[in-house]
Each structure stands twice: as C-alpha cells, then as structure tokens.
C-alpha cells in the first residue's frame, strides 16, 4: 500500500500524527495528502509567490518530522500544523528581509511605487482585489485567508493566534473593511495594474 494512499480515510489526523510521533513516519504521507493543498493555498496567498509556497509546504512537513515529539495528545492537528506553517512563513519573510507589514495604514496606495507605466495593462476587478489583498498588512491578510479561504471557524483561528474568538471576529471585520478601502483606492487611482513579464502578481 502506498504511504500516500487513502486507505486511512477513517483515521483521524491526530491519530496519524501520534503514529508519526511514535516512529511510523510513513504515515506522514497520508497527512501530506490531506494537508498539502490547504497549506499551499494559505502560503501562496500569504507570500504571493507559488514557488516559495511549494518550498514552504515542504519545509512545514520537514518541521513536522523534526518537532513531532512536541505534538500533544490533546491538541488539534490542524491548529498545530498551521502554527508551523505560520512560523515557516515568518522565517521566509525574515530571510528575504521583507517587512511583514507590506504597507502601513494610511499609506498612499496611489504612490509612484505602484503607479502605472507603459508596460502595464489594466487588470480585471478580481486581479485588482488580489493585488489589494497582497498590499494588506500581513496579519490582517492572514485573518482573511484563514476565514475566507480556509473556512476556519473563529474559535480555531483564535486558538491558532492565541487570542479570544471575539477578538478574531472584530479583527476580521476591520481587515475586510481595510481591504475594501485599499481596493477602492487602487481602482480610483487606476494604479491597479501589473507588469506582464517581471511582476510576480497575479500568482493564480
């Protein structure tokens, strides 16, 4: 039986991880099948770089092996592995010396840095929103990605971030509002464009 096969469908993530922790590392293949797409989705949306996201997913599974002894019986595997993914992403940002906070609140979104030049072409509305999402501060973008794309419940996000569920709700609301402001300002300033050949956006 392949270590990536789905014959373990009825086995919980936590049971599989306990097996990995106990030395049955082949079970990691099943966890990979279950989680590599959600992790890739999260990391690609957070970094805006799909090649980096693939490397980071790999890094996450290496860390799972490396720190498997730290998985606690009472913990939820999804929360644990996404915590690892957040750390991997933070390290990636540090290595690139890219500030986590891409844009400060109140910054001029129509600044020359993102202004149109002759090589730029008009983006669709979706691409514009995608651009706005990448311009949003990383911690706020993370909330939107987890809630909107990962479909995580507020309680799960709260556990992952170490805050109260009520705080998560308020922060998501603020993050979406701020995203909307960025989106509208990009659209109004007509700077919602990408370089066709050199820019890393759009990634999807």
């Amino acid at each position, binding site marked *: 039986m392949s*270590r*990536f096969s789905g014959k373990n469908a009825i086995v919980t993530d936590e049971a599989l991880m306990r097996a990995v922790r106990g*030395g049955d*590392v*082949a079970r*990691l*293949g099943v966890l*990979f099948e279950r989680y*590599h*797409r959600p992790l*890739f*989705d999260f990391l*690609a*949306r957070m970094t805006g770089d*799909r090649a980096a*996201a*693939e*490397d980071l*997913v*790999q890094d996450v*599974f*290496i860390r799972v*092996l*490396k720190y*498997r*002894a730290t998985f606690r019986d009472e913990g939820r595997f999804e929360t644990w592995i996404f915590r690892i993914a957040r750390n991997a992403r933070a390290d990636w940002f540090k290595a690139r010396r890219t500030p986590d906070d891409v844009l400060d609140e109140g910054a001029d979104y129509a600044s020359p840095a993102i202004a149109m030049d002759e090589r730029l072409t008009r983006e669709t*509305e*979706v691409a514009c*929103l*995608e651009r706005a*999402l990448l311009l949003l501060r990383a911690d706020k973008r993370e909330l*939107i990605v987890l*809630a*909107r*794309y990962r*479909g995580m*419940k*507020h309680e799960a996000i709260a556990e992952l971030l170490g805050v109260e569920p*009520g705080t998560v*709700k*308020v922060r*998501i*609301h603020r993050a*979406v*509002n701020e*995203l*909307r402001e960025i*989106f509208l300002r990009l659209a109004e300033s007509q700077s919602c464009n990408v370089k066709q050949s050199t820019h890393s956006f759009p*990634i*999807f």
Partner: protein
Amino acid sequence: MQCETVHAQLPDFLSHALTDAESEEIRLHLAGCRTCRNEADGFAETWRKLGSIASPDPDSARMRTRLTAIIDGFEHAIASAPAPGIRGRLAASFTRHSHHHLMRAASACALVAIGIAIGHYMVPLSGGSEKTRPTETSAEIVAMRGELRDLREMITLSLMQQQSASNRLKGVSWSGQIDRPSSEVVAALLDTLMHDPNVNVRLATIDALERFASQDVVRRGTIQAVDRQVSPLVQIALIDFMVKVNERESIGTLRRLSQDPKVNAAVRARAAWGLQQLG
C-alpha cells in the same frame, strides 16, 4: 443588538454559519439601521468578490516526490544507524564502524535527492520551456541539499532526545554527518555532555564536539563540564580534549583538580599531566 456586535457577526452571517435565530436578529437590526446596512453591503460585496479569486493549484506530484525522498531518507537513516558496541569498543565504534554504516545511510539520502533532481532534468517538465529547466533543476538541487542538511539535523536532534541510550548514541554520531551544523546541534551536544545520565553517551559527545573546538561556546562548555562530571572516565576524556585543542583557559580548572584530594587519583594524575602539556 449593538452595531458593533452586528459588524463582528457579519462574516458568519454571510457564510450562513449563524443559527436561524441569530440570523434573524441581524436582519432585523439591518432593516432598522441604515449605517449598519451600508456597512453590511460593503462588507458583503468585498466578501463575495474575495470568493472570485481562484485557489492556487500546487504541483502535487513534484511535492509528493520530494516528500517521499525525505521520508525514505529518514527511514533509511534510522534503519541503517548501527547499534552501539559495548563500553570498551565505543570509541572505535564511533570513529570507524559506525561511520561506515552512517556514511552509507547519508549517501543513500544524497543519492535519492540527486536522483530525483537528475530525473527532473532529464524528463521535460510539462509546460516548462527548455531554457528554464536547468535553472529550475539547479534550484531544486540546492533546495534538496538544504533539505538533506535539515534531515540530518532532524535525525540527530530527534535521536538525542530518545529515552534509549543507544538511540542517543546514534544521534551523537549523526552529528558528525552534518555539513555546517546549526547552533541548535552544537547546543544539543553540549547539553548532552552536561546532563546525559549515560557515561558512554557523554564520552561519545566529547569526540563529537572536537570538530567544533574552535567555537568559544564549546570551549567554555567543556571547561565547565570538567567540574560537573562525576565519572572519572569522562573527566579524563575532557582533560585530554583540553590538551588536544590547547585550551589554556582550562589551566585553572586542571590545577584545582590536580590538587584536590577528593578527586579520583587517576583524574588527579591526568590533570597534572594536562597542566604539564599546556604549561
């Protein structure tokens, strides 16, 4: 219901994650509050548009192949690591016999990774151009080398945390296979030297630390360890280590050992010898 409460509930409301009663309460509030209605409209529009951004699609096959190599390497390394010999053969085991098997294990890991990289190079990537392949392959090889180093470190650190002394010995031995190990590995070795309850493990750790003797933290750590050790065998091994790396900072410690009547006679004699060598 307060406006702030409504705002906080909007994501759940739009995702139909609220109970019927909660949803109805929000609808009622929105019907009577123009500010919240505008807020909700804007929020809902953005939330809906976010759903238009497609999910990225990973290259699952390539990722699966890389993970397979990592798991294979990990399993192979664990299976190939030799059982430690008895006390009298320990040193030789780590410098010759163990090395042989572990090198084979490490080589196997490297071959798996390099084989995959070559495979990627030889087989055209779907959708990729001829020009981009060598660069991508080089990047993959670099990435795989990094993964191999991570793998070796992971094996080393994992083994050193095991309850079984034989596994901890394997971990100490594995540290010798890591090219430019991280400070985490060096710190783990020093911690093992200080606290491992097994004499054989501590002795093997002294050998393993020798390659890091140029690091201040290692030299300071081994000097501290001389005082803390209760095993004469380990103390003597540490004195030999000091002499071998010409650690003159240890002279005070060696002098104290050589003059302390409570210290084992063999250790006192070795400390006196060490003082002569360093003097």
